[in-house]
């Protein structure tokens, strides 16, 4: 049964929501006591290690593990043969659909290795040294196959085909031959030809981005224990303990109730920990060895074998009237999916033009497999890539029209009542307010010096709701414990405590939020899609409201009044029965102390499928300075405005915005997967995969625009995804302004900019 909340009015005069209390898990995290994935150990545990393919594409002819098994200290060796073969099965889980068959084959290769780093075997041994030695003793015979990585090369008719069973979906007719194109999707409205015929100004270009990694600092880690009776325990760092449970059950053919997954503290995810890599292997090794098995990736493995997001090639053509009205848009997006189908091109297509009200458009998306790691979600999956192309094109259009870039976006911007490019009609959005916030921010008026430039770009994300469970339990002393099933990546426990405290009317310090294991709380979709504060927060609010209802009933029992004669205010029941003394109160503490005599423990649990996550919009302005001799880009200033609905804990909302900007700036300037001729990743480490360091960035001003979401009790909208959408184009547009050349291929590394300047000089 689904509970939904109809609540058109956002609560006024909030006491706790919008304040900035110290996070409840803070002291453990600043003292080094918080337990992350690799910090957990079990008695008698073994060390698990993975043997990975050194080839980008190869048939696995045979695997001989006899010598490895014979090595003293080796307790288990598993290969693809130790896992059941699964049929195609799509698992929704609230995220983009995962084909469980592909997931299982990504966890452990079967007949083919599909990318450099693909797992082909795993061992468990009594020490790291022995495990390493065992890996070296496993003899894998490969038949190396031709490989392909770049998206357009993978789409070519003569490209090596990764999956013989893959026939492009979404075409008018089913193709007669298999290819690397998993799917085409198309969104269109109006008459494109007529639109361009009516256009007075047209811009068009081709844009390229490279695969980039989420770059969380904590490598994947887990401990798994398979007991003799088949009861399994998994401790791991992930974005969802229930996701881990589901996937382990499917990949290993187990019953979910036999797997208990306990979430560790998670050291960053950004979408990259929305799937499993190690957990099923650790379970299989534990089953075979009879010992708990701990597995921890090193950084090289994280880069080579876990999800980056797509590299892409995109074509954008825009047509406008001289007054700035955009009348036609043609967008084609080609995204790398990695070794298995499922790039975020669908979301890229749906978000590409979501900020614009354009009468005639077509968006075509291509989901293309190639010999690189299977992409995983990365913050607003698909959207930053498409926004890089579209926002660069809009910037060119503004230049051609000689219009202020914000004015052009205001003129064509979506507002309430406008039908979104992806279908539904917008309501309660704050896009124009967000544009206005940037137009009036101090940075937008600051003068620029020589070799400096300013760029503006906008971004959109849907935000999602979905299934969550929360429990609120009142202790005998009146303190409250809030239990949810969502790992806390960026401070969500603080938001949960705030929302519960707001409803209960108590200080936030009186509420302790906890993240529970899969056996201790009802199902919750993973932490991702900017859903936790919205959806899980809604469950917390409803559970707290149920507790308040119980408290009022109990006060009514104590006072012997009708329940509707009791109000709840400031953490206490207030008697409104004029027959008894109106205004007398019973505090939460007082009621809790008498709970045994008024009905037993005070607690409530709510499970719901939250609808109505309001879409979010961001508008960013970036100032850069270029060294024209070296091509080096310095980001001088950055301001990001975002419609956040209502900031529950403003500091952590600002933090989401600032962090998203930093990741986007890295994507724009220096981050990229580099492959050698054999398809091996050349920069699988933080030395040459260059995420921004502290000295690369200025302070990042976050402007929180609050247009409340009427479907959330406190007006919250998701905030984590939107801020990574605009920066790629904001930086590129600033570079365009500084050097007078449009850079269409990311990253904007110094050699590329110097080459562009040299080409311009002739």
């Amino acid at each position, binding site marked *: 049964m689904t509970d939904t909340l109809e609540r058109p009015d956002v609560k006024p005069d909030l006491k706790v929501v919008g304040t900035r209390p110290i996070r409840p898990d803070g002291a453990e995290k600043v003292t080094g006591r918080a337990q992350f994935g690799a910090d957990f150990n079990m008695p008698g545990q073994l060390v698990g290690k993975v043997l990975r393919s050194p080839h980008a594409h190869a048939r696995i002819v045979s695997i001989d593990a006899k010598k490895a098994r014979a090595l003293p200290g080796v307790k288990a060796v598993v290969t693809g043969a130790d896992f059941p073969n699964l049929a195609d099965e799509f698992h929704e889980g609230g995220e983009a659909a995962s084909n469980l068959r592909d997931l299982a084959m990504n966890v452990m290769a079967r007949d083919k290795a599909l990318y450099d780093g693909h797992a082909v075997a795993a061992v468990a041994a009594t020490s790291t*040294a022995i495990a390493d030695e065992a890996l070296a003793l496993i003899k894998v015979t490969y038949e190396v196959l031709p490989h392909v990585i770049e998206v357009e090369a993978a789409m070519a008719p003569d490209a090596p085909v990764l999956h013989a069973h893959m026939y492009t979906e979404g075409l008018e007719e089913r193709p007669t031959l298999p290819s690397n194109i998993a799917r085409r999707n198309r969104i269109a409205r109006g008459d494109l030809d007529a639109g361009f015929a009516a256009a007075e100004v047209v811009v068009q270009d081709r844009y390229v981005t490279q695969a980039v990694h989420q770059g969380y600092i904590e490598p994947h880690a887990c401990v798994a224990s398979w007991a003799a009776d088949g009861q399994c325990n998994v401790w791991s760092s992930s974005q969802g303990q229930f996701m881990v449970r589901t996937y382990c059950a499917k990949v290993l053919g187990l019953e979910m109730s036999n797997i208990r997954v306990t979430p560790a503290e998670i050291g960053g995810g950004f979408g990259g920990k929305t799937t499993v890599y190690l957990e099923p292997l650790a379970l299989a090794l534990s089953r075979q060895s009879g010992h708990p098995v701990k597995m921890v990736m090193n950084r090289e493995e994280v880069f080579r074998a876990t999800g980056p997001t797509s590299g892409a090639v995109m074509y954008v053509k825009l047509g406008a009237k001289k007054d700035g009205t955009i009348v036609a848009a043609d967008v084609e997006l080609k995204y790398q999916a990695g070794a298995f189908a499922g790039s975020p091109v669908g979301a890229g297509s749906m978000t590409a033009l979501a900020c614009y009200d354009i009468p005639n458009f077509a968006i075509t998306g291509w989901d293309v497999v190639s010999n690189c790691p299977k992409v995983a979600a990365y913050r607003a999956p698909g959207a930053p890539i498409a926004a890089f192309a579209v926002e660069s094109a809009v910037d060119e259009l503004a230049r051609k029209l000689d219009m202020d870039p914000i004015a052009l976006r205001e003129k064509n911007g979506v507002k309430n009542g406008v039908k979104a490019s992806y279908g539904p009609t917008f309501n309660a959005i704050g896009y124009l307010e967000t544009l206005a916030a940037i137009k009036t921010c101090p940075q937008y008026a600051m003068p620029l010096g020589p070799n400096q430039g300013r760029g503006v770009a906008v971004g959109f994300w849907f935000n999602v709701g979905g299934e969550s469970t929360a429990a609120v339990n009142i202790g005998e002393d009146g303190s409250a414990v809030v239990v949810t099933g969502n790992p806390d990546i960026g401070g969500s426990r603080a938001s949960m405590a705030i929302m519960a405290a707001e409803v209960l009317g108590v200080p936030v310090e009186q509420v302790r939020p906890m993240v529970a294991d899969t056996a201790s709380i009802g199902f919750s979709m993973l932490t991702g899609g900017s859903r936790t504060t919205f959806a899980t927060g809604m469950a917390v609010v409803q559970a707290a409201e149920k507790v308040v209802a119980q408290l009022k009933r109990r006060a009514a029992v104590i006072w012997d009044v009708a329940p509707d004669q009791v109000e709840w205010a400031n953490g206490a029941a207030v008697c409104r029965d004029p027959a008894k003394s109106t205004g007398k109160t019973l505090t939460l503490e007082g009621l809790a102390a008498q709970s045994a005599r008024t009905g037993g423990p005070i607690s409530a649990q709510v499970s719901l499928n939250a609808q109505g996550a309001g879409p979010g919009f961001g508008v960013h302005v970036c100032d850069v300075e270029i060294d024209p001799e070296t091509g*080096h880009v310095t980001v001088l200033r950055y301001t990001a405005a975002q419609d956040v609905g209502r900031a529950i804990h403003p500091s952590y909302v600002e933090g989401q915005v600032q962090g998203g900007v930093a990741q986007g700036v890295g994507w724009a300037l220096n981050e990229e997967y580099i492959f050698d001729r054999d398809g091996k990743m050349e920069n699988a480490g933080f030395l040459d995969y*260059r995420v921004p360091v502290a000295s*690369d960035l200025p302070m990042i001003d976050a402007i929180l625009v609050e247009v409340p979401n009427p479907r959330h009790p406190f007006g919250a909208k998701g905030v984590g995804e939107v801020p990574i959408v605009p920066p790629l184009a904001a930086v590129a547009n600033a570079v365009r302004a500084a050097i007078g050349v449009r850079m269409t291929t990311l990253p904007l590394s110094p050699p590329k900019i110097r080459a562009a300047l040299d080409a311009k000089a002739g």
Partner: protein
Amino acid sequence: MPQFDYLSPTTAEDAAKALAASGARALSGGTDLLVQLRSGRTSPSAIVDLKRIAGAIGIREEAGGFVVGAATPGAIIGEHAALARAWPGVVEAANLIGSTQIQGRASLAGNLCNASPAADSVPAMIAARAVCVIVGPAGRREAPVEAIGTAPGRTSLAPGEFVLEIRLPKRPAHASDAYLRLIPRTEMDIAVAGAGVNLVLDASGVVTEAHVALGAVAPTALLVEAAGAALLGTKLDEAALDKLDAAARAACRPIDDKRGTTEYRIKIAGVLARRAALIAYQRAGGRA
């Protein structure tokens, strides 16, 4: 990690003895060696830690010049005021190696003997005409810094030999140096190109001695004599700088790799040589 012996001799002679064993490697700061150990690029039979040898860590003034112990970390080098006054280019190059944490360990000798063509301190030391004191089974010898690296990852050191200290010569008046490198970020990267320039001026500001060395543009750091010669007898006017730039570029033999293209490295070597020359000139009291 692989298994090996760990030795921490307290005399240079014992260290040389230990290093003479087949497969032994010297450890000073370890910031390159431990990465190589972990990745399996090196699997030594023994690690010989030089840090407990007397004098391996520290800086002393001798005969008007400076002697820097082989294992002296960048942080100590950066804190030595007299050294920084005399050889600001060498000090800034040493301090560019990695992060603050790396500076707590990384040494000049390690940077040199790791023999990466992109090592930041090496062009600066070459331009400074620095000399290594090498200890080995056959005793002590001296060699200029540019004689150590022979190819990426290879040195001219014989088995058992190691660099015990690096000597920077005495400074005349009106002399200074500078080192610049180009990296994609602002910190934490390996140089795409680097340039060290060491100048001596006369009282009127005319260059009387000039040494230019480049990093990351050839299999080893290069001493570019023609680039130094371009500055002699000048006050670093535009023509001299153009000649320097051209000579620097002409000396480059770089590779294309994940860190930069051949074309880019060559251009940048010229740009950096120019800029470093101007900084060194100004530091030496010249006014361009």
